[in-house]
């Protein structure tokens, strides 16, 4: 799981062009949206592409997505259970 968490942080940095950040600076349990990393709903559109391309996961609806994108730990948990690649 630690490995997946690190990979997710690297992929999030890449997907959202946060190149001046390091994975260490993204806290695993800190909110990604609003407070914490400060992402917005437009950034979520890139995370959706990331899940689909990298892990073969297609999110069914936005409500589900909002819960999954809570923080890196929650995404990692969801990916490990639902990944198709």
């Amino acid at each position, binding site marked *: 799981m630690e490995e997946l968490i690190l990979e997710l942080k690297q992929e999030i940095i890449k997907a959202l062009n946060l190149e001046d950040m390091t994975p260490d600076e993204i806290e695993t349990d800190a909110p990604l949206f609003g407070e914490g990393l400060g992402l917005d*709903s*437009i950034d*979520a*559109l*890139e995370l*959706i*592409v990331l899940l689909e*391309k990298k892990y073969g996961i297609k*999110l069914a*609806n*936005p409500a589900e*997505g909002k819960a999954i994108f809570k923080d890196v730990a929650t995404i990692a948990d969801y990916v490990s259970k639902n990944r198709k690649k």
Partner: protein
Amino acid sequence: MKELKASKQLEIRFSEVDSMGVVWHGSYMLYFEDAREAFGAKYGLSYMSYIEHGYFAPIVEQSFQYKKPIRYGMCPRIDIIYHPTEAAKIVFDYEIRDPEDESLIATGHSVQVFMDQDYQLVWDNPPFYLAWKQRWEVIDN
């Protein structure tokens, strides 16, 4: 991947010139809008087509770099280039040039997203937009 690009010659209105004698920076927003309309007409991705399919496509990001002034009487050309993205976004780059010497006057960038009729952000590519991307070969799969 194909590059999709449209161009339009701008007609500068006298009312767009500010007290420094150059086109006011805010006017460029409307030139970019004109460019999006020209692109939509050329490639079948117009504001009306969004509405016909039940979506709106609001601008959520727009930036400008002003390099040279436009003066009244000039006839600059705006080029609009579609920036391919897999996300449910419409991304464009813009260049305004002086056709006299092809010098660069301004550049810009815009991002649009899709909203449904309830004004909610659409997370996935709407089917009509996905079909459009495939038709113009601006998507990998």
